């Protein structure tokens, strides 16, 4: 550990906000309509990764899986201060649910000799939160989810996290390598330095790996995904009305009428 930890931060390109549609034939998300952005909880993961590097040295490598254009989110991470970026891209990955997705990321994290892997709490397009624990499980590594704060203890080869648990918190020490899912909004992500941002957008080229580079070509994609989308129904819109009330009691009464 002379040169600090190998820190890998997983990021994902997602459609911006609600600006998405559903493919009527496949029931899958049509990503082409919406602007593609970095999943907002991932900013907290990047910030945590950079803070860890500041505390104990080492390197931060941003890692993503997606189509070739997903390299844009690596640029965001590099602009914020990540040293390098790796893009996992291959048609074979298409249609992967969280099982093969976390497998590919797990193999890449192994390849990068990661000591700490960070990710956001969940993605705004799928909202499962299953990928960070999945990476940890695939590699047989420790996991820490819903993390509020991290404290590096390189002398013990451990990472200590304060985790949010319902009704309170806990502090957990994990042996390396460890996968961390940062809680959304738990830190204040830095803004990109201008020169770094220009470098990220003009000179930086991510390393690209495909499924066979990771040795997972037979274990990814829709065929390797335990879950399938069996249908998609549009939810009935909730009828909404608006009126002004003068007191809390009056409002409570109105709420009581519709509860």
């Amino acid at each position, binding site marked *: 550990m002379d040169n600090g930890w190998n820190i890998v931060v997983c990021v994902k390109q997602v459609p911006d906000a*609600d600006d*998405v549609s*559903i493919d009527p034939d496949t029931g899958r*998300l049509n990503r082409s309509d919406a602007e593609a952005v970095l*999943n*907002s*909880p991932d900013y907290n993961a990047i910030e945590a990764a950079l803070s860890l590097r500041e505390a104990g040295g080492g390197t931060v490598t941003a890692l993503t899986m997606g189509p070739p254009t997903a390299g844009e989110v690596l640029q965001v991470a590099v602009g914020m201060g990540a040293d390098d970026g790796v893009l996992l891209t291959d048609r074979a990955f298409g249609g992967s*649910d*969280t*099982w093969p997705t*976390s497998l590919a990321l797990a193999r890449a994290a192994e390849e990068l000799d990661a000591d700490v892997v960070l990710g956001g709490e969940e*993605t*705004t397009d799928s*909202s499962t*939160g*299953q990928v*960070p*624990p*999945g990476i940890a*499980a*695939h590699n*047989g590594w*420790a*996991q*820490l*989810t*819903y993390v*509020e704060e991290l404290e590096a203890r390189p002398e013990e080869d451990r990472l200590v996290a304060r*985790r*949010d*648990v*319902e*009704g*309170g*918190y*806990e*502090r*957990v*020490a*994990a*042996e390396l390598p460890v996968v961390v899912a940062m*809680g*959304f*909004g*738990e830190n204040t992500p830095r803004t990109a330095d201008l020169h770094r941002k220009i470098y990220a957008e003009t000179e930086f080229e991510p390393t690209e790996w495909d499924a066979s580079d990771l040795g997972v070509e037979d274990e990814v994609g829709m065929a*390797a995904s*335990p*879950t*399938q*989308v*069996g*249908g*998609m129904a*549009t*939810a009935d819109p909730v009828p909404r009305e608006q009126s002004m009330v003068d007191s*809390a009691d009056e*409002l*409570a009464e109105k*709420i*009581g009428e519709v509860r």
Partner: protein
Amino acid sequence: MMAATGDTDIDVEAYDDVWVFVEQHDGEVASVAWELLTKGRDLADERGEDLVALVMGEDIDSIPEECIARGADRVLVADDPVFEPYRSDPYGEQFRYLVEERKPAIALIGGTHTGRDFAGRVAVPNHAGLTADCTELEMANDRYEMRRPAFGGDALATIICPDHRPQMSTVRAGVFPAAEPDPDREGEVIDVEVVVEEDDTMTEVLERDVGDVADITDADVVVAGGMGTEGDFDPLWELADALDGTVAGTRDAVDEAGSNRPDRSAKLARPSGRSCTSRPVSPAPSSTSRGWTTARR
């Protein structure tokens, strides 16, 4: 610990029964577990299978009986100090073993932080299908269908898991009702072999502090404020009083109210830092709705 294997040739016919993970901390069962036992009972009846409750912890005494009263035919108990407090690695390894030995068809897990941490880990080694934040679970079209909100609640996706077992679902608290327990129900309590040793674990809980603040997942009524409150939570407290509810707010709003209102700062500030978080406003899961924190007075 055991890393995953990718065995895809699964004989789905060999898998039976509906399991419910009964999340407990220090003998206190998460209320969502009772809700899942009620839902699991319906599913098991429809499938003609047994409902099995899974309890892990240390010195578990009355919980198995309550599981039976709440619908379980069998309760699998893994009682060992290694399971208290919860940690994903020993829980995950024990669950992997139990699934391999007993082959459940369906597993229901509460969508708490602990439940989601657990589910994400245990789905991998068994190559199980896992669907997060289900709001409807039913037997339909001769299969188990899991429905969850998608795209911020504008759509409801049906997720199926045809070729893998178990079919796992997480469910948030409050989605399904819990039936009243029936103390006359009969069932079987089985102490299972514990396959994890402390030396094999990769994590250590240094400190755990819970219970100092209301868990808003247990509240029937939550009055929540955001930055629009501009530090003034008085109207929220008034409304909460009128509705017999609990006040919560986004973190920034609670912070602002705490510093701007010193007379009530002790009541509004987060006790011992961050407090419980949940998504009390909508069952539609989304990161953007995260970050609620309970305000106290």
